[in-house]
């Protein structure tokens, strides 16, 4: 550890933030909470970069003939995708909120491998630098999916730099997952049995399984892609006897489960928030917990639904389609259980709850439109159109980003010891919700009308919907800037928070000081009750 010396001049009790202010104490920290903050700042930076590209895309799409050169637009959407998927969405909740909270929630002093945790951040930054270098040198135009043979043979942009970035950052994801798995298995406090784990932890455990099992496959696929681009030996090049569909198989083996890496932690956050602001335990705890693991396992057997029109065998498509419907069941279970949790609760509408309710609504729409894409005959019409764009933005932005913002607000006092301005926060939540729907709902319609994705220019008849979408995007942009501003302000000037401002259950609120000291607890925690035990009394007629 850097140092544990108390600072006598401060009136605050020592916590992980005020033990040391030197830059070394941040860059060489092994404290999971400080690493979480390092991640938080880095992913915010990447989110802003990705968002700028998104804004430029929406600007271009105001006009049927576009505004930028085609190549420029192609680079915009590629860099938007690469940055947002690999450098924002994948690490977002696990590496920030997960890193910060997972050890505290299970009553551990740190993750099992603190130095590996720090290493993962450095690896992430190294990968990010390659991606940034790729942007600075002129960008990449392959789309974030890097489909061969376009990426291996035909594109003359900086594919290899971007690929190295993705490859390297993958290892940071693997190390985070590895750390979480071992921590959950081996570092739980006395009394913290599996059936007492917060659902946030269950979700992160499931996420970690995917990170550990899926990421290596995309890493090796990217290596093959780079080698092919250098050697032209033909492994993905049909002119040389290779099969481009193989690349898609290997790519989606990771990249479909990867969307569960992105959404599962969000579901964990929402479970915590709903329970707290309804003052009730999550309805069907076991089902919600187990559905995370079910999603993680089944999620590995559905990737072929990205290949329904790609020349995949119809019989294989049929199997993939069926399992895709199967994986919808655990997702639906979660939504129903969250809703049922509110039944006979005592509900308040603080900002995190607003985000959580928004999440449920938008994730429901995102999930149901996923069924359209799992239905083979419909997918033939909709795949590679704006319907797909709208679908996964409903899940990723409407779901994941709302959960992330909700979580950041919910645990903001825990992380900083200060409260955020409630009215501003509610306003921002409302603006984001409206802006988001205005941006992406028109895209469902665009998709069914047949507007293909990744088009720099488009037919006149699509313009109205595109203009609507761009208008929504500008509202959404304002909505994202607001929390950035007031949270930065509140970090330094906000009202000081008590240990448990929301009267929430869970070790992180009840037994760890706010903000936590370096080793999280003043007294070694012991768990004696079920999770979310807001009331010992059971409802008459309840279960």
């Amino acid at each position, binding site marked *: 550890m850097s140092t544990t010396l108390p600072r006598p001049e401060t009136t605050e009790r020592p916590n992980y933030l005020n033990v040391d202010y030197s830059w070394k104490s941040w860059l060489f920290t092994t404290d999971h909470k400080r690493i979480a903050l390092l991640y938080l700042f880095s992913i915010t930076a990447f989110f802003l970069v990705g968002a700028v590209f998104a804004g430029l895309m929406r600007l271009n799409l105001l006009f049927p003939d576009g505004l930028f050169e085609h190549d420029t637009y192609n680079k915009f959407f590629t860099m938007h995708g690469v940055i947002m998927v690999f450098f924002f969405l994948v690490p977002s909740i696990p590496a920030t909120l997960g890193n910060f909270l997972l050890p505290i929630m299970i009553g*551990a002093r740190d993750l099992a491998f603190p130095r590996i945790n720090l290493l993962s951040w450095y690896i992430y930054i190294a990968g990010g630098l390659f991606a940034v270098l790729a942007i600075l040198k002129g960008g990449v135009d392959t789309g974030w999916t890097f489909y061969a043979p376009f990426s291996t043979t035909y594109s003359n942009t900086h594919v290899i730099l971007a690929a190295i970035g993705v490859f390297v950052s993958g290892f940071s994801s693997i190390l985070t997952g590895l750390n979480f798995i071992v921590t959950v298995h*081996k570092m739980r406090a006395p009394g913290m049995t599996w059936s007492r784990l917060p659902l946030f932890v269950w979700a992160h455990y499931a996420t970690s399984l995917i990170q550990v099992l899926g990421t290596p496959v995309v890493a090796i696929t990217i290596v093959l892609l780079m080698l092919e681009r250098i050697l*032209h*030996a033909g492994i993905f090049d049909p002119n*040389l006897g290779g099969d481009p569909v193989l690349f898609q198989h290997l790519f989606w083996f990771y990249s479909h489960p990867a969307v569960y890496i992105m959404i599962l932690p969000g579901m964990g956050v929402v479970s915590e928030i709903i329970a707290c602001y309804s003052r009730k335990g999550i309805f069907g705890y076991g089902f919600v917990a187990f559905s995370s693991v079910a999603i993680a396992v089944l999620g590995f057997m559905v990737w072929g639904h990205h290949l329904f029109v790609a020349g995949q065998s119809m019989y294989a498509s049929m199997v993939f389609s069926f399992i895709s419907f199967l994986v919808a069941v655990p997702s639906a279970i979660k939504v129903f259980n969250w809703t049922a949790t509110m039944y006979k609760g005592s509900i308040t509408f603080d900002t995190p709850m607003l985000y959580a309710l928004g999440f449920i609504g938008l994730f429901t729409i995102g999930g149901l439109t996923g069924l359209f894409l799992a239905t083979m005959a419909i997918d033939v019409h909709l795949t590679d159109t704006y319907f797909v764009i709208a679908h996964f933005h409903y899940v990723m932005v409407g779901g994941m980003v709302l959960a992330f913002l909700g979580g950041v607000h919910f645990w903001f006092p825990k992380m900083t010891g200060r409260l955020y301005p409630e009215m501003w926060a509610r306003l921002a939540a409302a603006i984001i919700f409206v802006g988001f729907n205005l941006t992406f709902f028109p895209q469902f319609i665009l998709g069914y009308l047949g507007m293909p994705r990744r088009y720099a220019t488009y037919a006149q008849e699509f313009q109205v919907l595109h203009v609507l979408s761009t208008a929504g995007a500008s509202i959404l942009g304002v909505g994202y800037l607001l929390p950035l501003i007031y949270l930065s302000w509140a970090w330094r000037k906000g009202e000081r928070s008590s240990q448990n401002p929301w009267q929430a259950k869970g070790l992180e609120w009840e037994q760890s000081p706010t903000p936590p000291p370096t080793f999280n607890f003043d007294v070694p925690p012991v768990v004696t009750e079920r999770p979310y035990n807001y009331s010992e009394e059971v409802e008459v007629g309840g279960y």
Partner: protein
Amino acid sequence: MADTDLSVASHASTALKHHFDDSEQQLESSTLGMWVFLLTEIMFFGGMFGAYTVYRNLYPAAFASTSHYMNVTLGATNTAVLIFSSLTMALAVRSAQLGQKRALLSFLTFTLILGLVFLSIKYVEYHEKWVDHHIPGPGFHYAEPQYFHQAQILFFLYFAMTGLHALHMIVGAGLLITLIAMAARNRFSAGWYTPVEMIGLYWHFVDIVWIFLFPLLYLIGRTMR
């Protein structure tokens, strides 16, 4: 702990990191962490095995043709060398368990030497391929022109798989050198030898990968024509 009869050395407690309750928890965490890491390694090679399976299925005839250019004698020798090194590694872990420093040092050194022998033989094989112009890329030549492209893909996979494996061997050799240095400085005892055990697991895993690579790349298809 099941067998507390083993002596716990004095510095076992100094090796305990602050965030663990006791050395048992620390060891279990390390072991589980190592296995999870090996899990990712399995999937890492898994992607390659996937590509291999697909191309073998698509081009069985070309596959049979290329397997004639694989040096089975060298491959089999290397298999034996690697299995032998696994034995010495297992014995090194055993020596560490018993706290026998000298035996530990010699078994580790022996394992390292066998690893280097493997890499040397691999180098000879790669050199053969180089001489025969069997390196995929612009300089690739193949005696049977009808299989040119397919053979190139299969050689690409050969080099990707064995190359990745060799890379793991090189990393393993580096880790062994570290272990030898640590053992020489009396860092291990019967009470604490976790790194020896962890790197042992890694070494055996690399051995297993080769156990699969050998038949897949060298043997299958020898009789097909």
